[in-house]
């Protein structure tokens, strides 16, 4: 039994099966990416915060566009070679296509990696600071900073001294931004939610070991171990279940009795007369211990670290997700960041909403008032804005919000040196990965934990633009990988098929090529929409 029209086309439709299939599949992909683009536009319209326009470095996307278009051309060459029955050339062109795909993914990987290392934080007043975490040391619960290298205003020697501004001083590490240090000497663990706790309790145990403190131990003297918790949890569940079953039994008996006595009233009236209050002292009921408390042996506090997203309340007590409660003290958990991007738009919008002057509010903001280095940069920027306004007037335009309130890394470096941003020459590597922290000097600021409104690396969490960017480019990337795998299979594992049924192979390569072109097509729209608009 053979499926007809696998190789030769059917007369009335003029098509072979896989061609119809691939176009149908592409129709569904149009809907998929259409839905994604539609969501992108929806989110952008709906955004109640300044949308990160032109936030991505253009060069990687630009190069990728060329690479993908090139690979589209080479895949067509491959198909043509196959039609001419030149198997060697076919394999060569497929190989180049796959290499292009690989380069595409490598560039994409570099782009993603740069973003995952980039830190963003929003202050309570709305100021958005972007940059890289700096180094500090946590000793005996005290944060120690390495000696700051002061940037001298105006001249080149800051360049030389700043060469090492991002190298790690010995003994110092980058304290993750998303870490809270909490000092406690007692914790209680809710056994009901123990299963969710397990990951966190292990975490706590590891931390305790790191601190080289004595292990915390139960009030009765047993040390906190996972085995103890497992056993306590088992007991808790068994006893709780036993009690529940008993109560269910009593409730059933009560209902039966109530129905016997009164068979007329509707159920809901009966329910109101029914009172089943189990006597807590009833001997059949078992004791349910649902919380275990632990204290440190010596009474001295232990410092634990956890992520802010895992915590519900602090500073005097912390309740982790899942019900582990620690009572103690929030310790210094500063966020030390070197600024390579500054955005006052949110602050400006908030000020306008309150009827205040944005520029005045910025002058009064925490960042400008606390850090003279940053203030200097900001004032240089304002002068530049004046010049820009004049220049734009000649073109009949006004500076927009990005011009007024947003500083990118070139501007920050330039203004801190007292030169114009146009004089900063980006190296080729910097066009990909952003500023070179070993070469450039950036001002460093420290935010206290309670000044932080929101922080994140540049991941989907940071804002919806990055979320939708990663989803769209990620899905697109998966399609690139999928297409490359299929092309590899047809290019390098198809010798037998070529020898027995070359037309069938040609059809399949054509169909795979159609998919490849579609992937290119999506990128043609993706690049301007995400990178340029």
């Amino acid at each position, binding site marked *: 039994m053979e*499926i007809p029209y696998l190789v030769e086309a059917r007369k009335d439709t003029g098509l072979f099966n896989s061609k119809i299939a691939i176009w149908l599949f592409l129709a569904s992909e149009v*809907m998929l990416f259409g839905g994604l683009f539609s969501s992108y536009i929806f*989110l952008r319209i*709906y955004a109640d*915060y300044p949308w990160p326009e032109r936030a991505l470095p253009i060069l990687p996307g630009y190069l990728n566009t060329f690479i993908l278009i090139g690979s589209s051309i080479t895949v067509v060459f491959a198909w043509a070679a196959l039609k001419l029955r030149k198997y060697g050339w076919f394999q060569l062109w497929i190989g180049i296509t796959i290499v292009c795909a690989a380069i595409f993914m490598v560039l994409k990987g570099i782009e993603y990696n740069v973003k995952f290392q980039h830190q963003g934080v929003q202050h309570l007043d709305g100021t958005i600071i972007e940059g890289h975490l700096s180094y500090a040391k946590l000793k005996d619960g005290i944060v120690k900073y390495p000696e700051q290298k002061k940037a001298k205003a105006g001249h080149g020697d800051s360049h030389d001294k700043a060469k090492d501004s991002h190298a790690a001083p010995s003994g110092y590490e980058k304290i993750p931004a998303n870490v809270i240090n909490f000092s406690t000497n007692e914790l209680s663990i809710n056994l009901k939610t123990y299963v969710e706790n*397990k*990951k966190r309790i292990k975490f706590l145990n590891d931390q305790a070991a790191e601190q080289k403190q004595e292990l915390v131990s139960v009030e009765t003297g047993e040390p906190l171990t996972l085995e103890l918790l497992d056993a306590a949890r088992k007991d808790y569940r068994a006893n709780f279940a036993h009690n529940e079953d008993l109560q269910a039994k009593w409730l*059933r008996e009560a209902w039966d009795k109530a129905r016997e006595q009164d068979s007329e009233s509707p159920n809901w009236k009966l329910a109101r007369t029914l009172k089943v209050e189990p006597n807590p002292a009833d001997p059949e009921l078992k004791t349910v211990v649902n919380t275990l408390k632990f204290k440190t042996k010596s009474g001295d506090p232990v410092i634990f670290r956890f992520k802010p997203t895992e915590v519900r309340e602090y500073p005097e007590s912390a309740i982790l997700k899942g019900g582990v409660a620690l009572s103690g003290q929030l310790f210094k958990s500063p966020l030390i960041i070197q600024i390579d991007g500054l955005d006052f738009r949110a602050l400006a919008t908030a000020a306008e909403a309150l009827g205040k002057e944005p520029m005045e509010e910025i002058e009064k903001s925490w960042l400008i008032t606390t850090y003279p280095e940053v203030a200097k940069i900001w004032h240089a920027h304002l002068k530049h804005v004046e010049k820009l306004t004049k220049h734009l007037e000649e073109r009949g335009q006004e500076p927009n919000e990005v011009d007024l309130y947003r500083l990118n890394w070139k501007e920050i470096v330039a203004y801190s040196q007292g030169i114009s941003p146009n004089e900063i020459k980006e190296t080729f590597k910097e066009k990909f990965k952003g500023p070179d922290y070993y070469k450039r000097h950036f001002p460093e600021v420290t935010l206290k934990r309670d000044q932080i409104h929101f922080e994140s690396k540049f991941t989907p969490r*940071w804002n919806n633009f990055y979320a939708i960017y990663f989803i769209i480019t990620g899905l697109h990337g998966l399609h690139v990988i999928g297409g490359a795998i299929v092309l590899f299979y047809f290019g390098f594992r198809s010798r037998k098929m070529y020898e027995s049924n070359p037309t069938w192979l040609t059809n399949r390569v054509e169909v795979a090529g159609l998919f490849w072109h579609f992937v290119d097509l999506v990128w043609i729209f993706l690049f301007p929409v995400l990178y340029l608009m």
Partner: protein
Amino acid sequence: MSDHSEHHEESFIRKYLFSVDHKTIGIQYALGAMLFLLFGFYLMMVMRWSIAYPQEPLPEWMTWIFGGSDWRASWLQAGKLTGETYNMFGAMHGTIMVFLGVVPLGFGAFGNYVTPLQIGAPDMAFPRLNMASFWLYLAGGLIMCLGFFEWFSDTGVAKSGWTNYPPLANFADLEAANQWRSGQTQWLLGLVLLITSSLLGSVNVITTVVNLRAKGLTWMRLPFLVWAMLVTAFLLLLAFPPLEVAGIMQLVDRTTGSSLFSPSGLYTKTVGLVDVAGGGSPLLFQHLFWFLGHPEVYVLLLPAIACVAEIIPANTQKPLWGYRSMVGAVIVLGFLSFIVWAHHMYLTGMGPAVSAFFQTTTVLISIPSVILISALLISLWGGSIRFTPPMMWATAFLPMFGIGGLTGLPLAFNFADLQLHDTYYVIGHFHYVVAPGILFGLFGGIHHWYPKITGRYMSKFLNHLHFWPSLIFINCLFFPMLIQGLAGFHRRWYNGGEAYLPTSDDSENVFANLVANFIELNEFMSISAWLLGIAQIPFIINVFLSIWKGKKVENDNPWDCTTLEWATPTPPGHGNFTFEPTIYRDPYQYEPTDEGNIALVQWEKDEETSEDSKA
């Protein structure tokens, strides 16, 4: 597929488990779907206990799913269903019935089994893709249900409704340390697999229908079932991707902490001010969901109408009335179904212009539906009706679906929907369409093609035991829902409305008194539901017993149909046809004679062919 030209003995696994034969895959879909339907029914029976007897502990026989008393204690409170557990059961009931039950039965089983046979193809265009579709469906379905077992999930199953709206769906189960062990995330993962399965299946069906038709089978000679499956496949192909987008976005929200669906300033009871960036839109999810959600209900419907459209001509022995109108109607229905979705969202605060647009398109879409049902109804006129088991189900389908469809009309109007949205009226409406409507049609289909699949009829006696109680109890279950809904009973009340009852005998609370008037219908409905469950037992017995004990068929075309699937041997073998089929006439042609009507089968020529083939 040239390596299949020699017939070789296949191992059990290749032949029955990992088969690429569309007939085996169709049966696999049917068995899988029916198991899921049964499980979804069980979930509903438990929910109905909580609705009827909210303060009473579940009877022990209902709590088997919880296994040991430990696991049970985390779902029930003193033996009673908690609100959270009710929500879990409710969300899974909806998901299972729609995505894992009815669509796989209608499109996966009937679409796969019957379509290639009716167009004269040896198999589907892509048999291995077909197998992949089935296993993806099974994998996706099982992943969604994993949370019922402690081993797989820390937080149970999904609990935010089958519609899974954020922000609730985003934040439910977010406390779990390992997101991949939470029911909500597993649901999303299962959904992505299911959507992939549907996409592959629909590509397969469309390619098959377009390119593998037998000689002489022009578009207007296609049996109506093939048209219906074609439109269904297009609906699945084009409507599912936005839901995949929504599912992926929600997965990213849950695992990376993004706020695609979380608005700024969101505050929840458990967490307080939510620590996300904000700026997202819950409305976006609703749009994406219902963009699929509405075509999805036509995906549910069309296979059932297809079955009924095949059964009626066979059992009236006359042509389907208005074949061309039906084809036109089903195509228009498919197209219109894409532009009505926001009628599920009338209460999201949309302005009058937008709701007027969707109102218009929704009312318009009732026209093709009415054309379809009317054509089927008129097809009965003047026919010599044999009430065979399939015909019983098909004729019951017509008024039941009629009630379901008509009750949908008030919901189409945004002013009426203001009162009825999220009430039991909606539940009554869509259950009428799906349960006594679509499922009856599909039961008819099972009875109709069973003789072809197995070579035996299903038992008529067991069918009566299945049919009559089902018909009665299903109406007893769903009709009062319409009444309760009009009175204002809300959906997803886990205690059946008990919380809203008046607290004193002379209460002046209007709503409370209304609830008190109709709350006793709950017990009546629940008992009907449990009896309905018992009524399905004869069917289960029938399906399996008839394989060995059923009356054997007399020939390859026991119902005297005219369509091509009856030209195959019984059951059809590898490659389906023993000859190269050619089509000579339209489907459903019967010739009246003194001894009754003769089926003019599509694949046989006769002297009047030259006129028929031009018809």
